[in-house]
């Protein structure tokens, strides 16, 4: 009798706790959290550099997807190099030859930009959100506001076209794929002409058009070894670099003279 009463009391005493635990398990689960990582955090450009592919991967903690296939999450990954000022010029015919016009200056154009996602951007979230996050090439402002001007539109689209041709602007709305319920991956190919500097890799997680989590990281792209030494010397000590180039040339010439001397 006593034991039963004690048990009942214990159970009653624990009731609120048990209820709380039960509640946590079903109606309001913990918020999803995005974890993302890059296959490499540092890229060295050396003499054998011909471009590199990097992998962006990650997972969604507390994913609520029941079945692996039709996920209710969307992921957008943006890889971006530092911006640089750039001039766009149009050739015009002057006296029979094609001459560059004065051109338009764009103060801040990303040296590299890749946007990858699970679905077309506009199917994922609102235009406003895309614009704020800088998702999609059309949403980049290049450091000056877009106008309705036709000429401006032509120049802007030329910049985008040329950058895309050099693979320095990339967009792939099928570039992020889910592996199972919470794991995702995407690959980005950096071409040989990538600019150096500290890149940012921003990964955004959306559910029903709403940004619910993000992960921001960086990636260093640098010239390394001999290439780095040459490059730094050429830009920091240009005079010494010029003398060095002359010395190398003179030595090459002397070597040729000794190697092929006919006497």
């Amino acid at each position, binding site marked *: 009798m006593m034991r039963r009463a004690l048990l009942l009391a214990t159970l009653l005493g624990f009731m609120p706790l048990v209820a709380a635990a039960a509640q946590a398990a079903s109606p309001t689960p913990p918020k999803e959290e995005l974890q993302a990582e890059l296959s490499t955090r540092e890229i060295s450009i050396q003499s054998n550099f011909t471009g590199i592919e990097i992998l962006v991967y990650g997972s969604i903690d507390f994913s609520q997807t029941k079945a692996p296939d039709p996920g209710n999450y969307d992921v957008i990954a943006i890889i971006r190099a530092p911006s640089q000022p750039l001039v766009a010029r149009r050739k015009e015919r002057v006296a029979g030859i094609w001459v560059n016009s004065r051109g338009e200056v764009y103060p801040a154009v990303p040296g590299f930009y890749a946007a990858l996602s699970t679905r077309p951007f506009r199917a994922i979230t609102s235009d406003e959100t895309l614009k704020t996050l800088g998702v999609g090439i059309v949403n980049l402002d290049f450091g000056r506001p877009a106008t309705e001007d036709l000429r401006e539109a032509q120049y802007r689209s030329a910049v985008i076209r*040329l950058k895309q041709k050099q693979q320095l602007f990339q967009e792939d709305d099928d570039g992020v794929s889910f592996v199972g319920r919470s794991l995702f991956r995407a690959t980005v190919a950096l071409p040989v002409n990538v600019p150096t500097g500290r890149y940012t890799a921003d990964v955004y997680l959306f559910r029903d058009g709403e940004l619910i989590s993000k992960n921001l990281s960086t990636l260093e792209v640098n010239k390394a070894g001999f290439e780095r030494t040459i490059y730094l010397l050429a830009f920091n000590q240009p005079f010494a670099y*010029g003398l060095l180039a002359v010395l190398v040339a003179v030595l*090459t010439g*002397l070597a040729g003279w000794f190697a092929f001397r006919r006497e």
Partner: protein
Amino acid sequence: MFQVYLPIAEISVNLVLMLGLGAAVGFLSGMFGVGGGFLLTPFLMFSGIPPSIAVATGANQIVATSVSGALAQWRRNNIDFHMGALLIVGGVAGALIGVILLKMLREAGQAGLIISLTYVVLLGTVGLLMLVESIGAMRRTRAGRPASGRKPGQHNWIHRLPLKLRFPRSRLYISAIPPLVIGWVVGLLTAFLGVGGGFIMVPAMIYLLRMPTNIVIGTSIFQIIFVTAVVSVLHATFNQTLDVVLALILAAGGVMGGQFGVKAGQKLRGEHLRALLAVMVLAVAIRLLFDLVLKPAELYSISPLLAGV
């Protein structure tokens, strides 16, 4: 395969292709006895190297090839050092102007155009003159007369200018002004086009200064070493357009190719060689002209902002 990343041009090129290009130009220059810069720089431009980098790197490559050439000439005592020194003084002054001019044009986005245009005019003129001259020489040989139509030097207006100096090696007593001016023009061309300028300097020394032919080549190569060296340093300093890796590859190819070119050249007759060279020079000029005249597939271009536009 064998791709090499160029640290200044910031592109990757094929090592074999660039060595081959250096060797081919070296072969031609050995065969024709010319510097070959006026072929190398356009060929670099054709293979996708930005024009300003092609010019500066071409000039640097010429330093290497002319060092070998000058040593050979020096051993034969074929250099007039007094004349060479004057040509260098003029050359350095011209080079400074050329480098600054190119810097301004680069900032205005017109460097490629003006380099190409100057090449078209210069190569077109020189090529046509050479072609006419060599065909004339071939006709004369066929008619049984000697190939060389040049008569021994007579005094012209050049010899009446002031500031006369003695040039013992050339056995000349002429004004310092013409060598300075010739050197200046050549220096300008070196800085602007990445050429040695021998194709201007040699005829100028023969026809204007009336220097003995055997000394002309050696003296011209002597001047070219110094002026191309100065141009290399100036371009590196003011424009950061010299790619030392590319220059080294081209020079290595050039030094090797040159050896075979000399042998090949000895098998051909002078006027045939000149006609062949003239045709090649004209072909390069026409190709450059086409690029300027034909409507480009892409009208727009982008480049980093160098200075206020």
